[in-house]
């Protein structure tokens, strides 16, 4: 699966509020379901999502079993300087996914 879709405006004015939208492919298995034979399906979810802007953490989210598959997370920040927005999702079974996007601020 294509892992993540990220939408960040490529250019912004200094001080402008920008919206960041992220969508990641993940089953978000709750751990409460069972197979047809009654065996427990182990939990497999994303636990945390972190966004850093030039190394500074600007957004963090904790995810829980009630969140649907393929979590969509949107938030906003203030465009302060040109640089990189880095995104990291970590979860059960050693799941870890990173993406980064460049932004130009003028």
């Amino acid at each position, binding site marked *: 699966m294509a892992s993540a879709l990220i939408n960040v405006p490529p250019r912004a004015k200094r001080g402008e509020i920008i919206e960041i939208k992220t969508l990641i492919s993940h089953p978000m298995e709750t751990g409460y379901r069972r197979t047809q034979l009654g065996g427990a399906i182990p939990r497999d979810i994303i636990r945390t999502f972190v966004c850093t802007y030039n190394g500074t953490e600007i957004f963090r989210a904790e995810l829980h079993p009630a969140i649907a598959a393929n979590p*969509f997370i949107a938030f906003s920040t203030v465009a302060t300087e040109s640089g990189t927005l880095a995104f990291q999702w970590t979860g059960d079974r050693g799941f870890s996914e990173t993406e980064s996007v460049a932004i130009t601020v003028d």
Partner: protein
Amino acid sequence: MCVVVLAASASAGEIPLTERRSGYDLMSRETRAMQDDDTANPGMLWVLEGESLWNKKTGDAGRACAECHGEARASMKGVAARHPAFDAARGRPVTLEQRVNLCRVDRQKAPPLAYESKELLALTAYLARQSRGVPIDVAIDQRTQPFLDAGRATFYRRQGQLNLACNQCHDDNWGRRLAGNVVPQAHPTGYPLYRLEWQSLGSLQRRLRGCLTGIRAEPYEYGAAELVDLELFLMWRARGMPFEAPAVRP
């Protein structure tokens, strides 16, 4: 005389062409926004995956889809909107999923992909995406007419323990509620689509099988002639409506 009266009453419930509405129109504003924004539409995850599969060499022939078909944006535009389409070798209409697998087996010398597998959904989603906005136009001629008639017969046939036919909900009672859900007109304008209930992308046949289970009928197998014919009839019934894959539905 009696026959004429019966025929007239049987078709009374059909939805006039101008009053047809996509399931999109019956959704909440939030779900519509999700479909409209490519960065919020989870179906796009499959489309991106399909794009990489399109360009990947596979099978004993070692060829990628792109080597024969080129740029999908141009060569595949409108293709999903005219399937199921007649296949001369098989002597019957085939769905987009079957067409992909025929190409894999005959040309790429690769094993067919399983129905509802990630790869098949990804490829069909990528193909269907190229037809967004194209009016649905399945070819009805002498060769496909018998299959269209068979699909129509399935649509109007009462089935299952609840003894319901498709038209009893989707022609006669669309727009009303079945439990908490609005009954749509059942126009397959956006398949394969992301269904929030499934938390995944799925094909039209998955949806049809779900409906059959709902009326407590035994669902036909994936790829069964009955499902393909029904798919053909539904696409004909939605003729001219714009294609919107990958759609999002509740």
